């Protein structure tokens, strides 16, 4: 995957990310250990305190994070493999960004309308389908989920103004 011209052209190196993630893991571990210590990680009169178990979990997390961090630092100069090339990152963002906007949409306009718009626009823009086909698939999926969840299984999903207007 990581041919020479890829690393030459840039993109984040795997090892840099590896070290960064190890640092985050260390920080999370420290956070867990700190909060457990705050709650009490020893013994009270009636047995182990609330933070007893998680404190050690946090501690082990810290140790592992630190080891991976150091291992990564040692390889920092030699390991040149690329985590994502710019091309790949673009591909990932093509789905990640619309999905995030979609979740935002679910929150405000309900899942059915948001799904129809999301699927339709994604097909149109990323897949270059005709407007008609995109709209048909988007609406179709939305209507199917509506029938399945609201009518058959009676499981309420997030709804927005349109569903309110229709009386659901």
């Amino acid at each position, binding site marked *: 995957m990581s041919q020479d011209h890829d690393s030459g052209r840039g993109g984040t190196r795997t090892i840099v*990310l590896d070290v960064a993630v190890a640092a985050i893991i260390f920080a*999370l571990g420290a956070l867990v250990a700190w*909060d457990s210590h705050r709650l009490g990680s020893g013994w009270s009169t009636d047995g182990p305190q*609330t933070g007893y*178990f998680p404190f050690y979990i946090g501690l082990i997390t810290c140790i592992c994070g630190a080891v991976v961090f150091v291992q990564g630092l040692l390889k920092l100069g030699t390991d040149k493999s690329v985590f994502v090339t710019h091309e790949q990152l673009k591909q990932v963002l093509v789905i990640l960004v619309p999905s995030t906007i979609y*979740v935002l949409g679910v929150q405000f306009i309900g899942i059915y309308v948001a799904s129809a718009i999301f699927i339709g626009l994604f097909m149109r823009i990323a897949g270059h389908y005709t407007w008609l086909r995109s709209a048909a698939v988007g609406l179709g999926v939305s209507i199917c*989920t509506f029938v399945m969840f609201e009518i058959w299984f009676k*499981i309420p999903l*997030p709804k927005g103004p349109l569903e309110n207007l229709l009386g659901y």
Partner: protein
Amino acid sequence: MEELNALFHGFAVALTPYNLVLMFIGITLGVIIGVLPGLGGANGVAILLPLTFTMSPTSAIIMLSCIYWGALFGGAITSILFNIPGEPWSVATTFDGYPMAQQGRAGEALTGAFTSSFVGALVAVLMFTFLAPLVAKFALQFGPPEFFSVYLLTFCSFVGTGKGNPFKIVAAMMLGFAMAAVGIDIVTGQLRLTFEFTELLSGFHFLVAVIGLFGIGEILLSMEEGLSFTGHSAKINPKIVLETWKKLPRYWATSIRSCIIGCWMGIIPGGATPASFMSYGVARKVSKDGAKFGTGQLEGVIAPETAAHAAGTSALLPMITLGIPGSPTAAVLLGGLLIWGLQPGPLLFVEQKDFVWGLIASMYLGNIAGLIVVLTMVPLFAAILRVPFPIIAPVIVVICAIGAFTVKNNMFDVWLMMVFGVVGYAFKKLDYPLAPMVLALVLGDSAESSFRQSMLISQGDMTVFFSNWLVGSLTGLALFALFWPLLSALIARLRTPAPGGAPG
């Protein structure tokens, strides 16, 4: 004899028309899930779990376990026809399956794969039928220290059998435990790790994590590769099936070996994936056609498929008898049991006979149904794979969002799912294993409470985990597994400078 009676009773439970219909629906859904990228056994079952809340537990587990069998079957289709393993455990199937498809022997490869999957599952179910009650009876004597040492063994096995950096495996696992600890501590009622966020009061639900890590994460990975599906067409007709079946008995030794590997690897939490690789490797070494492996040998399809299915099935044994799942999918099923108000563990065999034996009977029936469904409907499933990715991708995101929302009817979970998706993507690429993380998240609370109870019994003395032969050997085994990477590295280092030049 007692088991046989109970089993027949189980068949009576499972053989109602309603349950049979659920079985076929489950298998079909399962195969579709196994075929689609981004949906797999674990998150597929997770997404469909809320749909079963209105059913009786027995019907629900029948449908969900059938989805699981279906996903196991489905992985083979994509491996053979498209050279894309739909599931991690079918990676080894691509080695010989895809070359067979290239030579126009797709039908033979598929028939071989399905049939050997069926054989593997059947052997594992037989073992399950007779072994599970014994294990459950044995486990009834377990106290908290024994249970904790079994948990310990489960998690240490990941380090022992895992291929990657042991520190990354442990780190992923510990993050899972930490997430399990978030929320209200049921013993003292104190809030842990919530940092005053009300959303975190109820903690992280593992279903949300599973859907995000495996579902969204997988979609991101697939997008990166810029998937274009070019597959071979599958022609399966009764003639091909019968001809392949005639060839299969020749490979009985491979089958038996793979069954044993699969059953063993399924019970110890290594799961189906290493089982399939190990079985393929062993078959290549032992077979007299070993050198031809990788060029389209039927035996090279039989070995991994048999083992993967045997492992996938026997992963349910520790889940039902001890409450300790051997794979992420089994963990999701365990979560389902808890939601239906059933406490997995040895008592299940005493208190919920209908449920347990209904499940075991449905394992037999489900695999027969599975074989029928996949053999007859392969072209249809292959057609699903030809649906272009720009349609599949957003639809799967929508399905995942619905799945995450329905877990607790909570919008926050949908956001969490997206975060888990990015984490899953990054972890996959950086070689942090996801399975131990999910298992730790599921088992965190039980592991902690058994640890606490043990500590209460012993007043904080760790030697309680060596206090009798049973708990001592379990803990010993666990420590051995934990330090195995270190030991094997040491052994390798001792061996390499040995005099005499080229090693074996």
